[in-house]
Structures are given as structure tokens and as C-alpha cells.
């Protein structure tokens, strides 16, 4: 059963590390976008669109981590083998 405990830990830590980097990246992107809008408010429409695409791109990294975490937690491909080994 330690296998499943390690799965939980791996999923939690993976999500933490993934969202750490994503948070930093999105913060930098928003910082630059806000600076751009403050300097040139008339370009805010274009900056907003570009920022949204960029944010979605960065966010997808965290989403990949989330998907992997969900696979580890709910659809682990090794569950059957581990249960078989544990049953022996």
C-alpha cells in the first residue's frame, strides 16, 4: 500500500511544482501587459488579446501537470499489477 501513498505524494508535489513555475510565468506576463497598458492605454485591446493567448499557453503547462496528477490518482495504469503483487 506504500505504492498508493507515494502516488498521492507524487501527485501533490507535482501539482505544487507545476503551479509554482506557472504562477511565476503568468505573473511576469501580466506585469509586462499592465506596464504596456499603462504606457499606451490606446493599445489595451490588442495587448489584452495577446496576453490572454499567452496566459492560456502558460496555463496549459499547469493543466498538463493536473492531467498527469489525475491520471496518477484516478486512472493509474499500474493499479491492477500492484494489487496483484500485494495479494500474493
Amino acid at each position, binding site marked *: 500500500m506504500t505504492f498508493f501513498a507515494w502516488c498521492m505524494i507524487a501527485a501533490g508535489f507535482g501539482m505544487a511544482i507545476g503551479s509554482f513555475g506557472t504562477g511565476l510565468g503568468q505573473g511576469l506576463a501580466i506585469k509586462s501587459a499592465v506596464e504596456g497598458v499603462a504606457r499606451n492605454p490606446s493599445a489595451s485591446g490588442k495587448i489584452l*488579446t495577446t496576453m*490572454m*493567448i499567452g496566459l*492560456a499557453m502558460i*496555463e*496549459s503547462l499547469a*493543466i*498538463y501537470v*493536473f*492531467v498527469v496528477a*489525475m491520471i496518477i490518482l*484516478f486512472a493509474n495504469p499500474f493499479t491492477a499489477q500492484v494489487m496483484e503483487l500485494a495479494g500474493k
Partner: protein
Amino acid sequence: MTHPFLFLQWVEEQLHTHLGEHVTYMWFVMLLLIGLAFVISRGIKMVPSGWQNLMESVVGGIENLIVETMGPKGRTYFPLIATFALFILVSNLVALIPGFYPPTANLNTNAALALTVFAMTHIIGVKEHGISYLKHFMGPILALAPLIFIIEIIGHLARPLSLSLRLFGNMYGHEIVLMIFFALVPLFLPIPMMMMGILVAFIQAFVFTLLAMIYIAGALEEAH
């Protein structure tokens, strides 16, 4: 797992058919969109009012967005892109009604949508450029072409993967967050998360549509 009660699944169980919840709810969204379009297009007037106003502004907004990102050439692909936008938006927003499940929170629906984008990109590219569409994959220097070809192929294959996983992860993650909050405090606490769900629904529909447009525009432009 995410929903305690799904209305259409209950109907489906009464009928003893074996359909996934994403299939039934996708049919629901399709019926909703087709029915709405049919009913509104029956009574078109020169001076719009009520529902026609709303639909005209939606269609006009999407057309403006297409012309802005793809240029006037992109108008040809308006039906495809507007369908993506409306279908994804409505199926994301359907999640906010209790007893309804967003079909985009299932990887199968999203993979179908993303593969359509992938196939359409290359079909449009071949239709537009013929055999010289291959130049898109060659890069600027002929000597490096075999190397760049492999990289480009991997890049193109990553597109449907990232498109489908982004939409799936966002919608499914939102469902799970809602359910966890609902299990912790059923009263009032899920409401701010549902507010964020509206934002996520709009942004993800927008991002999917925008990326589809950018990919198609990339296939349309001349190879450099």
C-alpha cells in the same frame, strides 16, 4: 464521479441505452444550438429586435475577430470557426446549470474537436498551396530540411494534444474544484467558484477558437 445527479443520464437510464454522459449532453448542446438558430432564422426582420439582436452581435463579433486575426481571407472559414466558438462556449456554460454536465469536461469530445482542427489545417494548406505546402515544413535552408522536417512534424502533432488537454484540464479541474467545495460547505461557498467558472468558460472557448484560427492562418500564408 463529479456529479451526484445528471438529468439526461437519468433519462438515458430509463431508456436502457448505454451512452456516456458526454454524448447525451453533446446532443443536448447540439439540439439547443440548432434549434435556436432555426427558430431565430425563421423570423428575420430588417430592423432586428430581441433575440435577433443578440445573435447578430454574436455573429458579427466572431466575424470581426476572424478578420482581425486571419485577414479577409479567413472569412471563408467562418462557419467552421463560429461553430467551434459557439459549441465550446455553450457546452462550457451548460456546466453551471445543476444536473448538467459539460461535454468538454471529457477528453473524447475535446479530442474530436482538436483532431478536426488538425485535419482542417492540413486540408486547407494542401488546398491552398498544392504540393508546395511541404515547403511549410522545410525551413529556410534546404540542407537543414530533414532535421527541421522532423521537428515540424512533432510540433504539428503536439497541437491537437495541447488543444484537447488544455480544454479538458480546465473544464474537468473546475468540475472537481466545484465538487470539493460543495462537499466541504454546500451553502454559498461554491458560488464564487461558479463565478470563476463563467470566466473560465469564456476564456477557454476564446482561446480554443483563437488557436484554431492561428493554425489555419498559418496554413494559409506563404512559406518563407
